[in-house]
């Protein structure tokens, strides 16, 4: 689903002494079928922005259009209920939303809400639990008996089972071990690639993830969108990012330093280990040491 925000403004605790403008009226268009990462410092408005994308928050002024839905300040909840069938959010620490007696019924909760019969919902729940790497032995256990990592995967299966077109992820890998982080991101990426119309919006502090998986990166700062572009464009402005309290991926850091200290004109856009090695090799070849490598 295409996303189009027009002068999007949001104020927390409107009309109270604690009023705070979290989104300061920006415009943005995110096309359908893309993997988009939203990066920005804590408090830049990332989480507030993404909650508008399935109508959990409504703009204080301005509009957000998601697919065929347009959300304004006075849009009714009933209208937004339909939207949530197609645009789902995985919140930070999604394991905090588990509540059912068994793993299976917790995952089936969402599909049942959106009108599937219990049998169909459980069938779909099983499918996504297995996709998320939960062994069938655990289906009838209480979600509260699982380990933290398993709980996270059950909660994510609960959102994937809604079969959304737009999946919004708010720091889904926070607090996982390195291997768990990679597995989790691969799970989302495989899901994304399965169908052409699927889109992902990922909010993350992991610049490596943003660079590696995204078609496009949206850079937010102080409640507005500062930059939008392909990863190599956004991450070529290391100075600007640093000024906003952000960093570039490690691989970009390495190549930038190499470029700076050697004076060689070379690309710094490499986001995987292979790409980085290729860039270094090319550098060595240019320097005439190719026979030794």
């Amino acid at each position, binding site marked *: 689903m295409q996303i189009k925000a027009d002068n999007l403004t949001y104020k927390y605790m409107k009309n*109270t002494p604690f009023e705070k403008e979290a989104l300061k009226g920006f415009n943005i268009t995110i096309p359908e079928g893309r993997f988009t990462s939203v990066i920005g410092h804590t408090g830049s408005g990332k989480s507030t922005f993404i909650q508008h994308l399935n109508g959990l928050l409504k703009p204080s002024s301005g509009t957000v259009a998601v697919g065929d839905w347009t959300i304004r300040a006075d849009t009714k909840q009933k209208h937004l209920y339909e939207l949530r069938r197609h645009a789902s959010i995985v919140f930070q620490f999604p394991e905090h939303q588990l509540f059912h007696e068994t793993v299976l019924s917790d995952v089936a909760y969402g599909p049942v809400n959106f009108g599937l019969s219990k049998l169909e919902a459980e069938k779909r729940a099983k499918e996504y639990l297995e996709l998320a790497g939960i062994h069938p032995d655990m289906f009838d256990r209480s979600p509260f008996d699982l380990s933290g990592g398993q709980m996270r995967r059950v909660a994510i299966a609960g959102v994937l089972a809604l079969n959304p077109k737009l999946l919004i992820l708010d720091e889904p890998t926070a607090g996982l071990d390195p291997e768990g982080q990679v597995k989790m991101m691969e799970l989302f990426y495989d899901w994304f690639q399965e169908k052409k119309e699927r889109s992902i919006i990922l909010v993350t502090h992991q610049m490596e993830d943003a660079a590696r998986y995204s078609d496009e990166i949206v850079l937010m700062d102080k409640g507005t969108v500062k930059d939008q572009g392909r990863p190599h464009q956004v991450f070529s402005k290391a100075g600007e990012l640093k000024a906003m309290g952000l960093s570039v991926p490690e691989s970009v850091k390495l190549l930038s330093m190499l470029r700076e200290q050697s004076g060689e004109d070379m690309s710094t856009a490499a986001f995987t280990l292979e790409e980085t090695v290729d860039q270094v090799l090319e550098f060595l070849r240019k320097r005439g040491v190719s026979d030794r490598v």
Partner: protein
Amino acid sequence: MFDNVIIGQYVPKESVIHKMDPRSKLIIVLLFIIFLFLTRHPFILGMAVILTFTAFSRSKIPFGYFIKGMRFIAIIIFFTFLLHLFMTREGTVLVEWPLLTVYSGGVMEGSLIALRLFLLILMASLLTLTTTPIDLTDGMERLMKPLKKVNVPTHELALMMSIALRFIPTLLGETAKIVKAQMARGANFSEGSLWKRLKALIPVLIPLFVQSFKRAEDLAIAMEARGYNGGEGRTKFRQLKWKPLDTGALSLFIAFAVLTVIFRFLE
């Protein structure tokens, strides 16, 4: 959704009321509430209204903010008013319907109760709106100190209260977050029968309880790790200071209390 809850909320401002000692504020609120319910005299009630509103305006807290937070309480006040309106059978008959008769005494009684409740809540909210939870519990602990002689665990009580107050905003934030997460999974809290709506709350309440127990455990461990072992021999970093302002304000309310008693005997 929970933007307008003001229970336990502290609003930082630079005002006379904010600067008062929590002990004087506590005593004043207690005095005021007791004596407010002892009187029906219009002069005293008028005085109570003036005292309350003066105090509120001096606190620099926007009145609109308070009114918004009163929405739930307004319903309670309204129902109390209705109950008294229909249950009191005194004075002249004003309206006569087949099942309902409204007496003039009912109107009087209902308005009186509504006014009292409103003033009571205004004063009590003013206390929490202008006093940080820490100050509030420090004040209470100090005021309860005499009870320690009869083995009342005053320090522990004060600590429990401060923890409870401290976690109100946290719990509200947590609730809002879980509500959103379940809404994203198709939960619907605003449609259907009452039973359906109550049932829709289960997916919110269970995670909330689970989280609360976890948090309580973490807190206990964190306290023990830092060597907490009760109030024995514990000194205070923040010292409470009784200022002339407090003496003045308290005198004013003692005068109010005395007048209330005098007018009661005059009736």
